[in-house]
């Protein structure tokens, strides 16, 4: 009975001299190795080349600015409340006259700190944010740190730079609901 078509017939045939010296087997093995020189590489040279991690990857935090470049965060504290690792802390301040172009609402985060050693990149802050202010970038990871004083990220590292705006490349994937049409501006 034949169970599989890959089975080989066993024979007691005498091997030739070349076969005894493994010459055909060596040639066959080298051919396989040489074939892989010309094929597509399966690995990347990691630190220099980085893979696309997908549109839902949760990496480096970013504090978004709105269309006019004003900070969206109002220091409501919901991210910090939602954070299971208690990594986020903030200090709120009132917007002064003349700062309307800097901050969107009358309250803003004067200090906003994320302890990256505590953060578990769960994305709950992103989900909790009522102002669509905090996002976890899909395209950038938090770099490795060697000293403990590099661990706490302040606003200088978190707020989005105007020349380096963050956009989700795949607009179909929305980790956080988009802003509703009605005005949410404070009065």
């Amino acid at each position, binding site marked *: 009975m034949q169970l599989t078509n890959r089975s080989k017939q066993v024979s007691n045939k005498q091997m030739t001299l070349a076969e005894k010296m493994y010459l055909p087997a060596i040639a066959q093995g080298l051919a396989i190795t040489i074939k892989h020189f010309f094929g597509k590489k399966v690995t990347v040279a990691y630190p220099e080349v980085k893979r696309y991690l997908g549109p839902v990857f949760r990496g480096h935090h970013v504090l978004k600015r709105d269309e006019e470049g004003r900070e969206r965060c*109002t*220091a*409501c*504290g*919901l991210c*910090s*409340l939602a954070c299971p690792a*208690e990594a986020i802390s903030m200090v*709120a*301040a*009132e917007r002064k006259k003349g700062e309307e172009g800097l901050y969107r*609402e*009358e*309250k803003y985060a004067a200090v906003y700190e994320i302890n990256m050693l505590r953060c578990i990149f769960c994305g709950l802050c992103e989900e909790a944010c*009522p*102002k669509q202010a905090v996002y976890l970038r899909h395209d950038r990871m938090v770099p490795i740190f060697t000293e403990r004083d590099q661990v706490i990220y302040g606003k200088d590292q978190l707020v989005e730079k105007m020349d380096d705006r963050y956009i989700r490349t795949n607009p179909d994937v929305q980790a956080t609901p988009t802003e*509703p*049409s*009605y005005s*949410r501006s*404070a*009065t």
Partner: protein
Amino acid sequence: MENTQPQLFKVTIDGIEVEVEPGTTILQAARKIGGDMAPPAMCYYQPLKGSGGKCRACLVRVAAGSAKDPRPMPKLVASCITPVQDGMVVENSTNEQVLSTRKAIVEFLLINHPLDCPVCDQAGECDLQNFAFNHGMATTRYEEKRRTFDKQDIGPYIQLHMTRCILCYRCVFTADQITQKRVHGVLGRGDAAEIGTYIEKAIDNDFSGNVIDVCPVGALTDKTFRFKNRVWFTKPVDAHRDCPTCSGNVTLWYRGEDVIRVTARKNEWNEVTEFICNTCRFDKKSTSDWVIEGPTKVSRSSVISVNKARRDAIIPDFQKKLAAATYTDVHEERDTSQLGIQQLPPERFAPVLPHANDPEP
């Protein structure tokens, strides 16, 4: 001899019977039962005479007026100002009409209320927020412009945000009944009605700070606490001091080692019974001024209790409530035509399960 013992009225609220004295309102009777039985109240404030009857949040259905005249009342009544009758039957949270009306009331109250909870200092201890969370919708249908007002400065202690006001009149009653002279009131009519002092003037009575505590929304907030911290990051502690003008019983709100706010104590209905003076509220903000009594009891479902777990904390009932609210019977959604047994010819299973194909009861 005449019987001087007052006759007690028997009232049934959501199927629970309670005996109360004549003259008690339905809301008070429901509060006597306690817990979730009490209708929500936005304008009614028990310590303030004359409050109530404005916000319509506490509407209930009276299914039977009294034992003598058991006809139901034709419309929903405001439970905070309707006195009970003997044999009255009240439907509060068991009536679909009451609940849908409350949903509409939330929507009405929120028409002009800005959705700026992330900015507002009252968030976390706001009556309107709780009311909307328990009874309202998650979204708004209102697209028109909300009313706006000129900013008014009413002194160094109290911050007035007129846009957030729901015109409950509590602060007006407080000023009338707690202090000697009232300098603020409701100006204008209808849509233009607003709380103000007419001529810009600081409210600087010794007890003026109490309007902050009675305000159900964030219209009147503590200027010394403005944007200092979120309510749920602070830790409430009961304390007292020997105060010559008031009772001196307060709640201190700690952030770390610092007292960042002092408020009067609130009971389980979020009402202040012992009003405190401005010296206690605004000037005594160090631990050395106070005798600490212990942590304030905060309901487990409140956001203030988050991250302040104690060993004797009780299990929250929110999960149970949510499960009960979203519960559906398994047969409602199930497509019984897909059940395997019915795809078999009847003669195959009829001897074993003779009633399998009967319609469900």
